[in-house]
């Protein structure tokens, strides 16, 4: 494997990781505020659908290179609306959070395809749109391997990497982040100190919808170009795994997402390795998942979820 292929592998890895990074960051906001979000899959579906439809109409209206950004905006909006269903059920009506997250997955799978058929005369998928183009960053993209690998990528990939740093800062270095985490660790203590628990949790869940929406949009706008029933197929669940793997920390989740992205990318390149031809392809496909379990067993140890995760907050039970 030469250096150029290595750069390409790195590039593909980041492209596949991008959606996972967004969704995992979204999951962190929700779960740090104490609300389990099993609905990331559905929220990504909402986002992917909205981006495909929004991008299509924006392209139709002649917005050219701005059309994908319109798609992203639509995805953000629809993701937030979708997450509100989860928020209302689990925060206001104190429903089991796992259940209301599952509801999101169901409603998303049903309603997006229903709307695709409604908008596009019974078609099973949205029309193909152009999506984002790769942007090379001058100077930096000339560096060997890394230049082609990192600095010649989609704008969404850059955005995801920047957001990891920003969200890390927001969560751990700002009063807002402290309050959000407090609400997820010990809501009644936070309440005593004057933090509005319900409001913080609403914000956490809505941010998760926003980010997972962008994650879904990334898939239609960079990888597939359309939205169909199998566009998301398990990415949301992988994002949940990345979030847990990364211990609810943006940087950790980023690492895990890149790991999963790498494992998806390696499939495209595995034929290049001489030694791999004797191994059945199924075993190569299995590697990332087996490796995840091995890493969890050997290194990471007990996962440290926010303490109040999954508990509806009831002020009268203090």
């Amino acid at each position, binding site marked *: 494997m030469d250096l150029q292929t290595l750069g390409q592998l790195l590039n593909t890895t980041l492209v596949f990781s991008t959606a996972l990074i967004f969704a995992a960051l979204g999951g962190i906001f929700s779960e740090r505020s104490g609300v389990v979000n099993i609905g990331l899959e559905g929220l990504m579906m909402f986002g992917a659908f909205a981006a495909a439809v929004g991008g299509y109409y924006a392209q139709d209206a002649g917005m050219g290179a701005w059309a994908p950004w319109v798609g992203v905006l639509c995805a953000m909006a629809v993701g937030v609306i979708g997450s509100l269903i989860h928020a209302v059920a689990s925060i206001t009506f104190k429903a089991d959070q796992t259940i209301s997250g599952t509801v999101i997955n169901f409603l998303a*799978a049903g309603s997006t395809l229903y709307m695709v*058929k409604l908008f596009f005369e019974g078609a099973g998928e949205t029309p193909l749109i152009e999506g984002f183009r790769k942007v090379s960053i001058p100077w930096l993209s000339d560096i060997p391997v890394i230049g082609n690998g990192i600095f010649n990528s989609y704008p969404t990939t850059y955005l995801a990497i920047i957001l990891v740093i920003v969200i890390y800062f927001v969560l751990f270095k700002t009063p807002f982040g402290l309050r959000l985490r407090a609400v997820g660790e010990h809501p009644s203590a936070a309440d005593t100190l004057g933090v509005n628990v319900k409001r913080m949790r609403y914000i956490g869940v809505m941010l998760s919808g926003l980010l997972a929406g962008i994650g879904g949009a990334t898939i239609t706008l960079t990888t597939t170009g359309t939205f169909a029933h199998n566009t998301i197929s398990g990415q949301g669940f992988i994002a949940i795994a990345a979030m847990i793997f990364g211990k609810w920390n943006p940087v950790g989740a980023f690492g895990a997402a890149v790991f999963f992205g790498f494992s998806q990318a390696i499939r495209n390149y595995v034929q290049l390795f001489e030694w791999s031809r004797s191994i059945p392809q199924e075993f190569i496909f299995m590697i990332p998942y087996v490796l995840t379990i091995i890493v969890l067993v050997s290194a990471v140890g007990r*996962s440290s979820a926010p303490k109040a995760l999954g508990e509806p907050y009831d002020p009268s039970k203090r």
Partner: protein
Amino acid sequence: MHRLKKIFATDSYIVPLVAIVMGFLVGAVVMLIGGYDPIAAYSALFKRVFGSPYDFGEAVREMTPLMFTGLAVAFAFRSGMFNIGADGQVLIGMTAATLVGIKLSGLPAFLLVPLAVIAAGLAGGMWAGIAGYLKAKRGINEVITTIMLNWIALYLSNYIIRNFLLLQGQNRSQDIPASLSMPFLNDIFDNARIHWGTAIALCAALFFYVYLWKTKQGYEMRAVGLNPNAAEYAGMNVGRNVVKAMFISGAFAGLAGAGEVLGVFHYQSIFAASPGYGFNGIAVALLGLTHPLGVILAAILYGMLTYGAAGMSFGADVPPELIRIVIGSIIFFIAAQGIVRWVLKPFYLKRKKEKVL
């Protein structure tokens, strides 16, 4: 006290019933927004399910794996775990049944069929047991392990089928001679693929109920599910209960796999992606309030709706995906019971003044 009990008892079925009605209403509203006729659509749905003996039999066939996976998810839930891995457990169960069914095909049927079924249950149970073991020993979140195990199961099954059981030139296994079909019922239902799996599923539900509520072991399991710390303090072995609960949960899912390959298809396909049994199982478990009787009823409802949805699209041109909106809404209203109670409040106040909602 007695009166209070009575209210809770009625409540436990009124809320789901109202939630179902509200779910259908949401579906109707969505259809109206899309410019469809909800009455025509719903009647086409029910006509599809009850219209002919064949369709009714096929609807029953559709319900069977839902019963198993619903029970699997519900059982884990009762023991305090979230089993997202029913999908992988079904696949492993399928593969075990196929493997035994083809490799031991020389055995007489009365031995071969039970062997294949037992193999499926054991394999599914052990697959889920891995997640249970890792949780018990290392505290690793079962959500992440079961997701990973789903993918591993998919590729492992494909590997086994492709390398040991492949029908030359096809993307599926050879035909399995062992069969769970019920020839006498198949005749009555116009060759609908009804099979013994349905009866096994009902037995599994009975086992679920008796085990959890009538045995000491089941009591421990529920205790661990409700509060592992308290259970530990009371001297129960939490880890062992976690592994056992996951094993039983996975065994239910594995049996679903046996039903599908031995009763319905008589071969196993190479799947490109997860077949989605586990995903439906979660919905069924939640619809059924994680109670075995509820799960059976929920599987019947869910099976009817998904099977009937195809009729809806033929009869009224409504996209069959609509049914997921209906199911999602029903689960939503069951979960957020506050909303249902709020809708019911005026009725309650008229009947029982003393009931505080």
